[in-house]
């Protein structure tokens, strides 16, 4: 008997919701964003001039813990052969992948709305919608990377190390190139004009998720 798509979707929601890591990541993102919002409101950051990028209004730093939710959703199945069990229950791989993707988008959307709330209440501009969209798109980039690399470590390390260490180093020489990196594109969605950043971030999400789909469909189900 083939399970109905809605059942597969609910099963994926349960998997995400019962992983302790997802709740820890959400709590960390809320706390981090609240702290950054307080820092921005206090004006301490503005007075330091351009040397500080972390606490400014244009910051998206709290997304770093947040993407772990999507990365765990996609990458946790590759530990201990869990994917094989999931494929036994849902043999159609595209259906399994689609349900996982849909569940991740829903969780990331709802989670992002919660995660940006404390910061948005404190920031003067306060607009939450582009921030939520940036969170969801970066989550999808992480989701796809986890599917491709079959790991939670590599995508999380890449998503943190590239914006924190690689971009400042590379940006000094190739400032335009760095603007097209996922984190920088998503961050530019917070200010005007936001259309280019939105298209670039959505492009990264699309490429990453498509690559993950191709890997899930073609590779050995044992997760090797």
């Amino acid at each position, binding site marked *: 008997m083939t399970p109905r798509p809605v059942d597969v979707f609910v099963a994926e929601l349960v998997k995400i919701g019962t992983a302790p890591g997802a709740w820890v990541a959400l709590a960390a993102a809320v706390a981090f964003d609240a702290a950054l919002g307080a820092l921005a409101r206090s004006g*301490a*950051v503005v007075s*330091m001039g351009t*040397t*500080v*990028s*972390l*606490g400014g209004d244009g910051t998206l730093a709290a997304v770093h813990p947040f993407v772990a939710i999507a990365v765990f959703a996609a990458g946790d199945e590759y530990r201990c052969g869990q994917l094989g069990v999931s494929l036994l229950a849902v043999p159609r791989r595209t259906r399994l992948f689609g349900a996982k993707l849909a569940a991740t988008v829903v969780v990331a959307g709802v989670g992002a709305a919660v995660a940006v709330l404390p910061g948005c209440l404190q920031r003067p501009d306060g607009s939450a919608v582009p921030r939520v969209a940036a969170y969801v798109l970066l989550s999808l980039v992480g989701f796809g990377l986890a599917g491709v690399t079959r790991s*939670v*470590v590599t995508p*999380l*390390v890449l998503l*943190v*190390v590239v914006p*924190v*260490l*690689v971009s*400042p*180093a*590379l940006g*000094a*020489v*190739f400032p335009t190139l760095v603007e097209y990196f996922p984190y920088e594109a998503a961050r530019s969605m917070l200010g005007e004009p936001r259309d280019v950043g939105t298209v670039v971030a959505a492009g990264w999400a699309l490429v990453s998720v498509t690559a993950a789909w191709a890997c899930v469909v073609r590779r050995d189900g044992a997760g090797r």
Partner: protein
Amino acid sequence: MSALRAELTKIARLRGTWIVTGAILALHVLITVANVPNNVDAVAAITPDGRIEIFAGESRPAEPALIEMLLASSLQMGLFLPVLGAVLAGSEFRGGQLRVSLLAVPRRSTLALAKTAAVGVHLFGVAVVVAVVSTAGLHYAVRNRFPGLLGSAEALRGQAAFLAFAVLSALVGAAVTLIVRSTLVGVLATVAILAVTMTQVLAVAAPQVDAVFPLSAGRNLLLDPAAARLTAGPAHALAVLVAWPVLTTAVAGVLLARRDAR
């Protein structure tokens, strides 16, 4: 000695070692090559009284400024080495590999020492390559104007300080990973320690606190106090740089000796 050799073999056979090492060195070569035209222009524009403008509007005596630029370009890559240290140290916590290692080397302090030494050897090699690439990039720009600059005592002292910073600070990443027993948490903790100081929030708000972080100690040790805003002197910086790996490695060694081997 054979424990050390075994640890070096493990590091050399690990795919992650070469991916991360290759990525760091490739990034450094890319940035160094891309900077060569800027450096050639800056050297060509040195004024008759020997002042250079590396950053727009900042005119400084050329020779110390060039040496500082050399060290700053190496220092920038030195930030990545703690991440490499974490990757090297974290490889045995998957699949129960550590139990097998302890079966071969039951004395845990020996294993901890051998592991730290092997990571240090690999990190030293990478740091030397980073320094060589930085030096080659700058050599191309200054070879006609200052042929002896890169061999001067000042430059060599700076290079030695960079190597010390690079290895000592990266060993912290390895020790933190041994303490938390996870590459992911080790890397993220390492990046968090770096990010705290990279934003320079502490340097402005609480310079004494800033000075006890390893990256700030590296800046304090390598950069020119006349040009950069530093938070402590070189002796303090060196003490901080030695204290971090010694303390974290000691904690990692004690925990490795006392905890269940997982």
